[in-house]
């Protein structure tokens, strides 16, 4: 047999160096596992002198080489090498490794012959005197003889343990296979500890334990040495004991019988073995589409229900293969197909199409009678309602989202968040009646939900129903005593009313309100507000008024921040806060209006602005301080991060002059920071309504690029939004209509032709499918008319589409536009009626 690949030519050791060096080199080869070189080295040395240590070295090299060959499956070569080792080195032939190779090669007869020749076999009477080598040999033979036929035993002496314990071992094996616990117990009891079959006992016990307590079974099997004689039976259990893909890696290296046993232990149908082999052969993280292809190739082996489940799971990730050809494997229902397509669209980022498929899926799912289907439909509708498509930039629910949420409650009412969303939605729309109706409906199912009770408080306050608000707040605080938001809501509502009483000159009623507010409010800022209103119930110039006003200003930290807060309160109470009133109010609060502002003042003001909502109307409380604030901007003493915060705060509160001033100074100081360019231009643009100069526009474009280079996505998006606003307005239909009606145009602008419009719709439907058209049509014509037409068409899809297209064409050619924008009505708080004893007196 030729050696492959051929070894490089080496210099003969005898000429390479002296004996000591040769010995050292041979030992190094041996240590490094270069057995062939070690063998050559020791052979060369032995030619010179037959030293025992060199003979032992050669034996070790032979052993290493033989084991290496056996590990590669070259057992015959290993056996021959082992024999050479015995001949040359005089080592014993019948080592356990040699016996193992012989048995694996099917040469039981030779092994048995050796055993018999060695003096038969150990018997019960042999006791401690038995040869351990013979016992090891018997143990190695035991599994083979257990599975072999009776003829193989003819040569064994009758007293051999192999022979005597064989019936018990066979019975144990059969009892395990037949799931006969009693017979198994009896059979295992017949295998004593000294028996060559003793490992079988432990393995069968672990395999039985596997069915009830996997951890205990794993622990039991791990106690057995992995090179034991019954390892062939233990290996499947060791393989499946691994977690995750670990068992797959261990399973794949087993032989076919062991793989089959492992699958039985797992309970995996044998038909799935090819799929498991394919899975074991894939990369660590195969692409979803590759996984889909792999399963598809073996889909015939999968039970139909499992195939469908896997299809549902994988199809959204293999759009071309999965959603486009739904019957590729399994039998997904139309609802499954819609769900998979919707999820695929969502993964692709096409939320609009995803919603169309989701809503179709919800309808199909709701129509099924299976348990949980109504809940699934509701979950889908909620998912759509709260998707980015149906929420504004501030996460406020839109009309379409509210419709979806309302519909979802038809399928499942046990979702408190949905009730909260709808209560909030109608309150924000100003429809307090619907908000209350939603609230009452929600409270039926969630009477003790803190979130819903908080909405009850807010809705009641929006309707000036103070008693109801207080009752709901008390109920909420009983459940959640630390709920600061509700305390603040109710307390501040009392203070707002106190302000109105002060404005109306009813000091006593205002005090009563303030007292009531005091039971709810406890933060320093709120205490400040309370104290200030209390001051304003006192007579002008009275010491008590001055004391209380000063106390309020102190609670707000004094200085600019306190001045801003005070003037903000004054705007809510007094009808007109001119410069003289502003000055006197600040003076009586001890705020020095002539004081030069410092960086700390601006910082305190920014913190105050961050915690407050921008004023909706009236002059800015900062107008009084604007000049002094501008002066601090010129000598900017803040770092870049703080300055960004200052610009943000001023910008949020509509202080565009201040924002611009700070941003311009910062822009010069930190020219590499595009955020200041943005703030400067955004402030100017807010003042003029557009980007007034080409220079600003170019600066913004440069800032956009720089933000992109800095990977500041948020800033890039903000700049982009600002630039988008600068796009020239699109000519809408009404403008086109006006153009066509102009008498003196030098050219004729054609009026919309109904046939052309119809063609346009038909092309769009053909290109994008019916779904988006139907969705838009439902929105335009209203659900009622849409459903009426659908009923009238009685399933005739083409007629249904034709009718809808007719309506759409008619609306366009008749010059119908979007209905005029009607802002949601703002609910203004009711004025306290004359003679109203308490604000709780509704």
């Amino acid at each position: 047999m030729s050696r492959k690949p051929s070894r490089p030519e080496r210099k003969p050791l005898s000429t390479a160096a002296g004996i000591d060096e040769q010995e050292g080199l041979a030992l190094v080869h041996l240590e490094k596992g270069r057995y062939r070189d070690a063998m050559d080295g020791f052979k060369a040395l032995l030619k010179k002198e037959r030293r025992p240590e060199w003979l032992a070295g050669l034996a070790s090299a032979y052993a290493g080489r033989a084991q290496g060959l056996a590990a590669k499956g070259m057992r015959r070569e290993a056996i021959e090498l082992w024999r050479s080792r015995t001949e040359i080195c005089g080592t014993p032939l019948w080592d356990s490794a040699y016996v193992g190779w012989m048995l694996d090669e099917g040469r039981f007869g030779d092994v048995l012959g050796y055993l018999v020749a060695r003096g038969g076999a150990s018997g019960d009477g042999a006791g401690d005197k038995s040869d351990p080598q013979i016992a090891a040999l018997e143990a190695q033979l035991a599994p083979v003889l257990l599975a072999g036929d009776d003829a193989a035993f003819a040569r064994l002496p009758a007293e051999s343990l192999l022979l005597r314990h064989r019936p018990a071992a066979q019975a144990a094996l059969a009892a395990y296979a037949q799931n006969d616990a009693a017979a198994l117990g009896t059979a295992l009891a017949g295998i004593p500890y000294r028996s060559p079959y003793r490992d079988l006992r432990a393995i069968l016990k672990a395999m039985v334990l596997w069915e009830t307590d996997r951890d205990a079974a794993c622990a039991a099997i791990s106690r057995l040495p992995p090179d034991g004689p019954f390892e062939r039976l233990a290996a499947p259990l060791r393989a499946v004991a691994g977690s995750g893909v670990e068992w797959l890696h261990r399973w794949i290296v087993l032989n076919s019988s062991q793989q089959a046993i492992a699958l039985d232990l797992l309970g995996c149908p044998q038909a799935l073995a090819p799929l498991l082999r394919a899975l074991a052969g894939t990369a660590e993280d195969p692409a979803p589409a590759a996984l889909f292809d792999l399963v598809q190739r073996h889909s015939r082996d999968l039970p139909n229900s499992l195939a469908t489940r896997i299809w549902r799971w994988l199809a959204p990730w293999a759009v071309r293969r999965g959603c486009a050809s739904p019957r590729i494997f399994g039998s997904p229902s139309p609802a499954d197909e819609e769900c998979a397509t919707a999820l695929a669209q969502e993964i692709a980022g096409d939320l609009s199409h995803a919603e169309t498929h989701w809503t179709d899926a919800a309808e199909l799912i709701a129509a099924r009678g299976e348990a949980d289907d109504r809940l699934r439909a509701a979950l889908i509708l909620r998912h759509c309602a709260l998707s980015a498509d149906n929420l504004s930039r501030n996460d406020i629910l839109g009309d379409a989202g509210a419709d979806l949420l309302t519909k979802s409650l038809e399928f499942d009412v046990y979702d408190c968040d949905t009730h909260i969303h709808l209560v909030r939605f109608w309150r924000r729309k100003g429809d307090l009646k619907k908000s209350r109706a939603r609230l009452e409906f929600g409270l039926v199912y969630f009477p003790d939900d803190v979130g819903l009770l908080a909405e009850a408080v807010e809705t009641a306050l929006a309707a000036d129903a103070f008693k109801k608000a207080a009752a709901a707040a008390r109920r909420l605080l009983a459940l959640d005593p630390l709920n600061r938001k509700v305390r603040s809501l109710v307390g501040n509502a009392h203070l707002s009313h106190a302000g109105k009483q002060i404005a109306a000159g009813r000091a006593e009623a205002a005090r009563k309100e303030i007292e009531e507010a005091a039971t709810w409010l406890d933060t320093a800022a709120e205490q400040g507000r309370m104290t200030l209103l209390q001051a304003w119930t006192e007579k002008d110039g009275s010491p008590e008024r001055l004391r209380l006003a000063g106390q309020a200003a102190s609670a707000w930290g004094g200085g600019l921040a306190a001045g801003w807060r005070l003037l903000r309160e004054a705007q809510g109470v007094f009808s007109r806060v001119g410069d003289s009133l502003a000055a006197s109010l600040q003076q009586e609060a001890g705020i020095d209006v002539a004081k030069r502002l410092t960086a700390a003042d601006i910082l305190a003001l920014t913190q105050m602005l961050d915690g407050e909502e921008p004023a909706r109307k009236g002059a800015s409380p900062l107008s009084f301080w604007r000049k002094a604030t501008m002066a601090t901007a010129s000598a900017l003493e803040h770092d870049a991060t703080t300055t960004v915060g200052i610009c943000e705060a001023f910008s949020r509160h509509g202080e565009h002059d201040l924002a611009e001033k700070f941003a311009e100074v910062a822009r010069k100081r930190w020219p590499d920071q595009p955020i200041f360019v943005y703030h400067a231009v955004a402030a100017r643009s807010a003042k003029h309504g557009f980007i007034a100069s080409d220079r600003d526009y170019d600066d913004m474009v440069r800032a956009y690029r720089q933000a992109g280079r800095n990977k500041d996505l948020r800033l890039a998006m903000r700049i982009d939004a600002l630039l988008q606003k600068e796009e020239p307005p699109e000519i809408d239909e009404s403008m086109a209509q006006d153009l066509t009606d102009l008498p003196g145009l030098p050219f004729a602008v054609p009026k919309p032709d109904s046939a052309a419009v119809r063609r346009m719709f038909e092309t769009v439907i053909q290109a994008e499918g019916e779904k988006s058209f139907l969705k838009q049509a439902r929105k335009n014509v209203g659900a009622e008319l849409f459903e009426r037409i659908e009923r009238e068409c009685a399933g005739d899809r083409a007629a249904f589409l034709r009718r809808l297209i007719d309506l759409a064409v008619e609306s366009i050619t008749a010059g119908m536009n979007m209905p005029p924008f009607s802002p949601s009505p703002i609910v203004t708080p009711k004025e306290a009626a004359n003679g109203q004893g308490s604000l709780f007196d509704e």
Partner: protein
Amino acid sequence: MSDPYLLLGVSRDADDAVIRAAYLAAVRECPPDRDAERFARLRRAYDAVASHRLRLAYELFDREPPTREQMLRMLESEFSPRRADLALLRRALKGGVDGR
């Protein structure tokens, strides 16, 4: 690993009690002060599948790319353990040419 079932070590048909027990056991094994990141992952996993309603939502809207391990778990959900027959056991014991 982002599959909450894999992270909590429960099967996909596990109920609320099993999932909660698995979560608590995992937290006991790895409290937040020992490995805050792992605890956060466990918490997210638990929050994703803690109730029947959440599990249905997870099944419908899960957008994590599928993995080989999840695939195995899915196959395993259909397994029902049984015992190998005697012939197979004897064949494995006998080893032979492909035996190890």
